[in-house]
């Protein structure tokens, strides 16, 4: 028998429910509004009163309306067909909704149950298996999609039956397992999992030990993110957060990408909807959309579902990680999620923390970031979830609760600077404020030195130092005037400009420049450092700036040319000539 109750209070989307029986924290319930069932989640219980946040508009809801509790937490459906789908925050398929407007109480199936998949068994009868063990596989596009023992299965099982290779629908039984007591349990290709609980079923979660390539130089070269690592991008509006995230989504070397558009502009999501099915994934040559799932809860969609959307996205990532895949989660923007938490905490009349955010904001954020990571599966394979979130700090001020809490949780920090955006130095990632903690990991340093070249990390640190010194010189020049400082100041300043223009700045809209391979990044940084290692003997500061402007121009033309093409080599020759000519 399901627990039932009646509505006793309503403030915006928070309802209080007097219930009979028992309810659980985070249990899902449905409020009946003249026959339309509105989904809600219990967020607090006092005595026989439950507080629930409704995932829809509560207009017209009355005191006394019936509520039915569902007996489980917010769950999503996991199975083949998740990729290239577009969902709302509660995993309703947006593409199969008919009306142009989102209708209240309209919940659509996340997966197509009529589609047939080519199944190949992996496990054999008699195999000992447990939660997340691979039973078989289907091809989801080009990706081997593993059919696993459901994550909710506890203890060990023996495979009693496995379906023969062939075509099956997601709800067909593809295996029968026997538990310790000898009882048989059927397994299909789909399973459900509560989004707020981290998916387990792996052997261990080591420290990240290798890097994830994004093709963005200011990330890969200067502040690399580890596979299974976490990073965040804070920045005022108009600094290019979304462009940077889209660039990463388009070109990073992940197998699966989940993009959570959380409380942001609908037209930005439309851009993904329209472009990704056309764009080519540079790593596989397949359509970008084939490796992408979009979770879209734009700013005008119900606030409570905004909070759910990031969890839904993370759960899908963990599901693919358990298949031994490299998954990237991008969430834009986690500030909107935090604001959703604030709205609810406010309605519950909780004592507020800083800026009226709930006091446990910090722990909620770090708990979420901790779900990322590289894992060793029980079968020895590895899988990973790398997470990059954006943060939209109020007033562009990085000393606000969401940015500060995220800074504690994420290991990479890509600060977008208004000044860089104003002077059109894109991506506007500040080279000095930003950091990657992974550079300090000995295992990552070793990985970089092996993967790119010996001594790479030292080269990176040197480039960072050049930028720092250049900034100091620029300040001196501004105060004292061009003539008021020694010419060596100009030289140091221009060396940092060289690093800035050639390595840091990158045109996300240029086909060639937008994505730089590690090999090419190594080549460019080495070449730039050759110029920076030289000492020059300029007569005047004009001579100095003219020399470097000319050099920067050749380097930039090279950046726009295809790697090792004829054009590329001709610019390289130009640059080599400048190098051997000395000051002239």
């Amino acid at each position: 028998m399901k627990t039932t109750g009646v509505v006793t209070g309503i403030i915006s989307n928070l309802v209080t429910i007097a219930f009979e029986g028992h309810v659980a924290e985070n249990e899902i319930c449905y409020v009946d509004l003249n026959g339309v069932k509105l989904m809600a989640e219990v967020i607090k219980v006092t005595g026989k009163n439950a507080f629930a946040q409704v995932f829809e508009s509560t207009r017209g809801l009355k005191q006394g309306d019936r509520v039915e509790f569902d007996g489980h937490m917010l769950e999503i459906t996991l199975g083949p067909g998740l990729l290239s789908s577009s969902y709302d925050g509660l995993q309703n398929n947006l593409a199969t909704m008919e009306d142009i407007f989102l209708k209240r109480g309209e919940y659509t199936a996340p997966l197509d149950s009529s589609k047939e998949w080519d199944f190949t068994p992996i496990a054999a009868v008699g195999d000992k298996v447990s939660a997340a063990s691979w039973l078989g596989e289907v091809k989801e596009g080009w990706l081997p999609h593993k059919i696993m023992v459901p994550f909710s299965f506890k203890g060990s099982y023996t495979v009693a039956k496995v379906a023969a290779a062939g075509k099956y629908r997601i709800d067909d039984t593809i295996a029968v397992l026997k538990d310790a007591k000898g009882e048989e349990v059927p397994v299909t290709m789909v399973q459900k999992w509560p989004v707020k609980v981290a998916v387990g079923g792996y052997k261990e979660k080591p420290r990240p030990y290798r890097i994830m390539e994004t093709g963005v130089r200011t990330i890969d070269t200067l502040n690399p993110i580890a596979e299974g690592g976490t990073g965040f991008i804070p920045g005022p509006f108009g600094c290019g957060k979304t462009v940077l995230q889209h660039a990463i989504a388009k070109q990073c070397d992940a197998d699966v990408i989940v993009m959570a558009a959380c409380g942001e502009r609908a037209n930005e999501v439309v851009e993904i909807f329209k472009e990704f099915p056309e764009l080519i994934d540079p790593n596989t040559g397949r359509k970008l959309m084939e490796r992408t799932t979009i979770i879209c809860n734009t700013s005008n969609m119900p606030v409570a579902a905004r909070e759910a959307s990031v969890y839904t996205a993370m759960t899908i990532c963990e599901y693919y990680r358990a298949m031994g895949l490299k998954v990237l989660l991008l969430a834009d923007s986690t500030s909107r999620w935090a604001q959703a938490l604030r709205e609810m905490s406010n309605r519950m009349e909780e004592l507020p923390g800083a800026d009226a955010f709930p006091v446990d904001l910090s722990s909620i954020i770090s708990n979420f970031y901790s779900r990322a990571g590289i894992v060793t599966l029980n079968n020895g394979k590895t899988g990973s979830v790398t997470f990059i979130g954006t943060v939209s700090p109020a007033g562009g001020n990085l000393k606000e609760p969401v940015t500060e809490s995220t800074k504690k949780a994420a290991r990479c920090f890509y600060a977008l600077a208004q000044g860089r955006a104003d002077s059109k130095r894109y991506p506007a990632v500040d080279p000095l404020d930003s950091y990657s903690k992974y550079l300090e990991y000995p295992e990552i340093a070793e990985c970089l030195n092996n993967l790119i070249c010996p001594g790479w990390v030292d080269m990176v640190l040197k480039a960072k130092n050049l930028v720092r010194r250049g900034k100091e010189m620029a300040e001196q020049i501004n105060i004292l005037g061009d003539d008021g400082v020694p010419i060596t100041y100009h030289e140091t300043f221009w060396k940092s400009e060289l690093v800035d223009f050639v390595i840091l700045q990158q045109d996300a809209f240029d086909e060639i420049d937008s994505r730089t391979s590690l090999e090419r990044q190594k080549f460019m940084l080495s070449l730039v450092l050759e110029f920076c290692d030289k000492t020059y003997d300029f007569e005047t500061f004009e001579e100095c700036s003219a020399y470097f402007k000319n050099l920067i121009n050749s380097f930039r033309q090279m950046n726009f040319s295809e790697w090792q093409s004829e054009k590329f080599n001709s610019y390289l020759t130009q640059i080599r000539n400048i190098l051997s000519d000395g000051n002239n």
Partner: protein
Amino acid sequence: MATTNAFARTYTQLEAITKATVSLRAQGISNDELAIVDGRLAQVVKIKGDSVTLQVFSGTEGIPTDAEVRFFGEAPSLNVGEGLAGRFFNAYGEPIDGGPKVEGEKRFIGGPSVNPYKREQPSQLIPTGIAGIDLNNTLVSGQKIPFFADPDQPYNQVMAQVALRADVDKIILGGMGLSNDDYLYFKQAFESAGALDKIICFVNTTEQPPVERLLIPDMVLTAAEYFAVDRNEKVLVLLTDMTLYADALCIVSNRMDQIPSKDSMPGSLYSDLAKIYEKAVQLPSGGSITIIAVTTLNDGDITHAIPDNTGYITEGQLFLRQDTDTGKVIIDPFRSLSRLKQLVQNKKTREDHSQVMNASVRLYADAQNAKTKLENGFDLSDYDMRCLDYAKEYAVRLLAIDVNIPIEEMLDTAWEIFGKYFSKAETGIKESLIEKYWKA
């Protein structure tokens, strides 16, 4: 909006009164429903057991504890139909032009959002004749963009100009806290342009209570959705002034004892504003809603919660500023941005558009640097001097809001000014375009 209902339930005992709300004991009341409290319109904002709290739009001055409260049983609505065109309404959707009530289908205001998957990518140019907009910050139908302006800037005039020049089927004005003078200005501007048949106005003036303003955007957008979705028309929505709207939100949340967040604004400000701005849409059927709003600033401060949240929601902003060198009001090329401009530039406009735009703004930036040098007492180079002269001409002939020319002419003007002050190389424009368009 309906004001009679045969089954209306009536109560006569108030339990609490604040400046914006009243509370009473009542049964079977639904969330968001309307009521009349002592002859004034009110809406249910909170239900707690038997206790119901209503927000009284026109304020609670003089309401006695034995005031009559009559519930309607439904949320605010608007009658939509072709008859809306050419009419003026108050915040409740009641005619204020002396005309008859509008016949049509009753629609609840503040309706659901468009499924993002069903949206079309905006791609139609909206020319305005103002180069600061068309050249540097091109508008696209389905876009939402505010003017950021100090209260002393002529933002309402600019907005009226933009609206009247734009090629759209309907213009719907939502005036919130509009001064009576400005209201009459809009009315007169629309009349003298002979555009009244495509104008619809919902107006709350400063003479009327501030909380009433909260209804205006939803009224306006319900009418806009009718024309865009049902009739596939191109609709331009003007909302002025959204800062005063947010102030009204602040008043209500304060009276309801909500904990304020930054700048004493309610914590839900972002969602509240997004719900309005995200109604801007390009529909697959060809209909569209474009929103141009005004957000007044306090001394150019864009870090205040209202412009800050707005900037995160809208697709750019148009920044009005008085140019001290020329005395003209200009659209600031540095702080203004149209996020959708690349969807139409060089595609719906001439091939040299984006390059000319970038070059002209970059040279204008060089002029600012030269100006700083001059102010700090450093010597100016020949290039600096030319930049300063260029900046003056650029401001007067292109950035000023009183410019009204087609886009091709803006581009030609820019080339002409480039040729006057700079060498070809100094513009940094692609060779092939220079060969084609350079004016010596």
